[in-house]
């Protein structure tokens, strides 16, 4: 019994690492520009479809699909920044929410229109079989997703805290005018941030495409998961997103196992609402 629980928790941690990866993209953009991307979940969905297309058209596995999805989505992110975000950022809140929300619809239903509403999936053994460690059974695809997501999330944190690019981005987040006086272009930095954020979703999407159901509306659920993660972790904080993502993965898996699969989303949403009630600044945020 308890052995099954360990199994469930490990599964939750592996999925949670992927949650952390795409949520750190949302938290980066939110913390830096104070704009919430309502299309974030749909970016992940696009990443899943890119991986799917790479597999069906070229027969390529995750080794080809994941980098390609990262690249494609990073491009999408930069294009979206220059075409839409740069202008609506200065507009009223209504325009900000409508703009990214409309983008979400546009992406979701373009994919719906092209691929249909059917559940697609990758072949079960695309990454490899199932490993057994001391009685634990772990699918190779989930292991790969969890480990890569964890490493890339940590890498993102290092990029933001240890490199000059990260410092420049933080400077722009802190004070645009001051950053400009120091010779940093806010526009370029923000475009890079959108590229990184969207690239992270592309990678996350390609990683979970190997074991998740692929459907146009999956972005809605994943988008809410990202919001929950960011509001738990405190916006702008990648380590916060990491802890919160792992936590949510475990909570989701546990509630799916203990209460029933249909209720696992409800548990996460209710948790989010409770947090908004009692601790809107997040788990690790400042008041």
């Amino acid at each position: 019994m308890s052995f099954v629980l360990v199994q469930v928790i490990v599964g939750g941690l592996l999925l949670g690492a992927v949650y952390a990866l795409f949520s750190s993209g949302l938290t980066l953009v939110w913390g830096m520009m104070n704009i919430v991307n309502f299309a974030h979940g749909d970016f992940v969905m696009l990443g899943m479809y890119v991986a799917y297309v790479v597999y069906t058209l070229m027969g390529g596995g995750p080794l080809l699909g994941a980098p390609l999805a990262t690249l494609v989505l990073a491009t999408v992110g930069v294009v979206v920044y220059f075409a839409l975000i740069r202008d609506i950022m200065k507009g009223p809140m209504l325009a900000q929410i409508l703009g990214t929300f409309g983008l979400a619809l546009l992406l979701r239903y373009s994919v719906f229109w092209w691929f249909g509403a059917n559940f697609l999936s990758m072949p079960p053994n695309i990454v490899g079989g199932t490993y057994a460690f001391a009685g634990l059974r772990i699918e190779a695809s989930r292991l790969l997703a969890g480990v890569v997501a964890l490493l890339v999330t940590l890498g993102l944190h290092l990029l933001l805290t240890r490199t000059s690019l990260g410092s420049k981005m933080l400077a722009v987040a802190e004070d645009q005018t001051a950053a400009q006086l120091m010779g940093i272009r806010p526009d370029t930095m923000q475009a890079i941030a959108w590229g990184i954020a969207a690239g992270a979703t592309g990678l996350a999407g390609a990683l979970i495409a190997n074991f998740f159901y692929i459907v146009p509306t999956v972005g809605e659920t994943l988008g809410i998961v990202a919001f929950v993660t960011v509001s738990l972790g405190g916006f702008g904080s990648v380590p916060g997103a990491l802890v919160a993502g792992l936590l949510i993965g475990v909570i989701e898996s546990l509630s799916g196992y203990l209460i029933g699969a249909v209720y696992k989303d409800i548990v996460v949403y209710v948790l989010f609402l409770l947090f908004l009630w009692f601790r809107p600044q997040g788990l690790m945020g400042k008041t």
Partner: protein
Amino acid sequence: MRRLIWLSVVAACAIAYPLLMSSPFQQRLGALVLLYAIAASAWNIVGGYAGQVSVGHVVFFGCGAYAAMASYAKFGLSPLFGIPGGIVLAVGLAAIIGVPTLRLSGHYFSMATIAVAETVRLIVTNTEWLGAAVGLSGPTVPRNVFDLSFLSSLPYYYLFLAVLMITLLVTWWMTNSRMGFYLRAIKDSERAARSLGAPAARTKLYAYMLSAALTSVAGALYAMMFGFVDPESGLGILISVKILIMAALGGAGLLFGPLVGAAILVPLEEISNSWLGGKGAGLTFVLYGAIIVLIARFQPGGLLALFTRRSKPNADTGAGHAP
């Protein structure tokens, strides 16, 4: 005065429309435009005037729709009895969502509304008593006129027209009351409004509750016209989307904005559905998404703002000369 003449012309056209356009398709289209105009006008109170973008407004729509159908299917009463029940439910829910989130920045509110709508949809889909995934049905054969089950769309048309007029009157009255002034001040700058003593959180909450009540009425009317409600048609996120885009396209925060938006988008959707059939469903929402993005990018005030902007310079100079 000119405004009054315009108003009476529009009202006369609205009353005469189903008599002039008497095919069932046209009458149904007219009734649907009015129905969505009610819902979008209700959204406008909180989304437009209070500037709080509720993305999960369908949850109130669902309160009304489910209450109306439950009052028939579960208690054998006329669906009309569901309307007050739906209002109570919607206002209560609005208070639960609004009290914590309206204190926070606008994004949190938008997200919380999505999360609540999805939670309610998932719960209802798994609740046997509310018909689970199948939903609830209204009367197939009306027992009397109070079952509000008609074959023709004509009675619905006039019923919806009356409700729409009440909704617009309430909105107009609200904008000219103390609450309207508070809302405008808060929307301009919440910090400034609060420092001048406007009770920001409470005013936004009242606007949200009023909007929820009216949206629930729209939901009840919708369920009566279609004779059933299921989780997709009563609580699906796409209903929220339609409501929101209609208000935003016409002009959020303008009295007649939602009406204009509904009059453009409802015929567009009906026509694209009848042309393209099932395949059109996806394409319609691609188009909706594109429209929302374009509005947000180029005309966040909506279409009607084009006209007010053009006439504004005169109004401004007029005010300048008469201090």
